[in-house]
């Protein structure tokens, strides 16, 4: 087509003129290319999000239960009622402890994979980390329910090892204990940890692989003990990976509503509250206000992470 136009400049179709126009005004081309993704992000993605958030500035009428479409901050005030504050606190604590535990467990695993695993072992490692991600989330959660049940595999193991007293002593503790592991916060914590761990390991591993081994050797050559090398060289260089992983584990735990429904004490977390207020109660304003909470928390989290220099290496 272009060739034809070059040889016979006289007949110029609309395509040629369009082509010329785009050539002369390159900004227009960029605009045309960027418009669909921008529309997707702006209208469909963010637009729907803002449509939801806008609901949080409405309120529910105390008597009829109908939504009152007038601007008010009363719904946000309701978030500070004791029962709702409990939900937020509970969820944030859970997300924080899951994140810390995932980092503590994930780091050595990722370090081994990045530094020592080679060839077939590396493939096996990837498979081991990724495999849980391929199977259904619900199947995993339900199987954990069976593992943690009062008459489940774990109790059986403790019994076989004559350690039932240990399990019972642990379960008699306040807060983390309960009637059995599957109805305790410990159970919820373990399942969260299991399900989100790959999201922590993979970014840490990617970060560790970019740390040149020569730096660690240099640190050793200059007389640093292994602990010092870890604290002053390895950890700061791997921090972007840890922060990236923690963003995943933290935000995923903040929003999840299925795990605490199947394993745990039935006390609500934010995701469940949103689900229930929106679906069951028809209290969309309060559901929307609850949905804002994780966004605010993640905003603060990302700000602090940035201040700590976590994104400097990106």
């Amino acid at each position: 087509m272009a060739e034809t136009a070059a040889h016979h400049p006289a007949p110029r179709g609309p395509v040629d003129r369009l082509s010329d126009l785009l050539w002369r005004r390159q900004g227009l081309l960029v605009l045309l290319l960027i418009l669909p993704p921008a529309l997707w992000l702006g209208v469909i993605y963010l637009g729907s999000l803002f449509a939801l958030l806008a609901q949080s500035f409405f309120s529910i009428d105390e008597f009829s239960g109908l939504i009152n479409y007038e601007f008010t901050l009363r719904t946000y005030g309701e978030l500070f009622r004791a029962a709702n504050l409990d939900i937020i606190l509970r969820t944030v604590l859970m997300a924080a402890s899951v994140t810390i535990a995932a980092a503590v467990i994930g780091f050595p695993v990722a370090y081994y994979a990045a530094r020592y695993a080679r060839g077939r072992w590396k493939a096996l490692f990837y498979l081991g980390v990724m495999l849980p991600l391929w199977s259904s989330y619900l199947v995993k959660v339900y199987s954990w329910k069976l593992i943690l049940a009062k008459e489940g595999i774990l109790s059986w193991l403790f019994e076989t090892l004559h350690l039932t007293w240990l399990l019972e002593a642990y379960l008699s503790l306040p807060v983390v204990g309960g009637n059995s592991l599957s109805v305790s916060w410990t159970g919820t914590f373990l399942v969260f940890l299991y399900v989100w761990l790959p999201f922590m390991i993979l970014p840490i591993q990617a970060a560790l692989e970019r740390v040149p081994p020569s730096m660690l050797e240099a640190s050793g050559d200059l007389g640093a003990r292994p602990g010092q090398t870890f604290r002053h060289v390895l950890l700061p260089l791997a921090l972007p990976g840890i922060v990236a992983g923690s963003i995943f584990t933290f935000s995923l735990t903040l929003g999840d509503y299925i795990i605490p429904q199947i394993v745990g004490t039935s006390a609500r977390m934010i995701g469940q509250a949103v689900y229930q207020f929106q679906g069951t109660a028809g209290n969309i304003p309060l559901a929307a206000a609850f949905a804002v909470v994780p966004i605010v928390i993640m905003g603060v989290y990302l700000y602090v992470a940035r201040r700590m220099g976590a994104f400097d290496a990106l």
Partner: protein
Amino acid sequence: MKSILKSCTALCFSVGVAVTPVAAQMTEIGAGEGELNIVAWPGYIERGETMSEFDWVTGFEEATGCKVNVKTANTSDEMVALMNEGGFDLVTASGDASLRMIAGKRVQPINTDLIPSWNTIDDRLKQAPWHYVNDTHYGVPYMWGPNVLMYNTEVFGDNAPTSWNVVFEPMNLPDGQPNEGRVQAYDGPIHIADAALYLMTHKPELGIASPYELNQDQYNAALDLLRQQRTLVSRYWHDAFIQIDDFKNEGMAASGSWPFQVNLLQSDGAPIASVIPEEGATGWADTTMMHAEAENPNCAYMWMEHTLSSNLMSDLSVWFGANPAVPAACTDGRGMQTAEGCTKNGFDDFDRIRFWQTPVSKCDSQGECVPYYRWVSDYIGVIGGR
């Protein structure tokens, strides 16, 4: 200008007149539209695909030419949401959804004259308050059943529980162990009504007339009882299969439950039985309701008649462990159900059952009641330990 205004007024008026009859109930059934879209509970509309002997759709399709499409919903709230979206003709709504849909004008009045078998319906259900509002019928009764007290026979031995107190009050069960950590409760705000029902017997001074119509004091008393229950319950149940699993693997002793779980556990050989305690029980009663803008009203009316006159009621009550809205379906051999089967499903306990309704602020028994959305937020608080 004036003439334009005039003709416009005339036009608008005529359009208004033409539209009005559509909004009111139908007066005659025409030819079928060839299609029918139903929102239903899982297992409610069977065409022999799950088990070949349970089929109450194929015959209807052959007789009327209406192809039945089913969209299943797992909760009352899903049903309300689907009906709000539109595109459906019928819904099998429980009492905690039906009033919401009537109030939201998502369902239309039913002309009972167009349903020849209307008179075969159980007299106790014909004008039930969850579908009969302002002297208007908004649906055809479908199925009903009780929320029974399920218990482990190994724990209770010969002393079957006679009261809901085993799940509300701290006590030792007949096997000598405390009930703490071994009882469950329903993970839905409607469970507040179970507490209120218990209080009707045990604290008559509160003057509760209906467990779904509570003033602030009565409501607070029910919440206090539920807070006490929270100390006994280690996990609330919301999914029938999780509860079944808990009775098998978590050593559960007693819980409010549905005949559905009881039947499944018993057929698995688990040491499980159920009872309707002396206080009575809450229960569910479902109604076939018709969307306000149903696209296939003729097929919808034919289906409503079909639910009453065919094998549907009888076979469904066997399949689901529920009771038919047509008493004759228990006995006349139109399907597999028998009189004994209906008795087992609680057919004779109708008067002891308080059927689910949506709590509303303007209630019949007293001026001002606590509405449902507060039930939701407060029950969340109770489960969270508040």
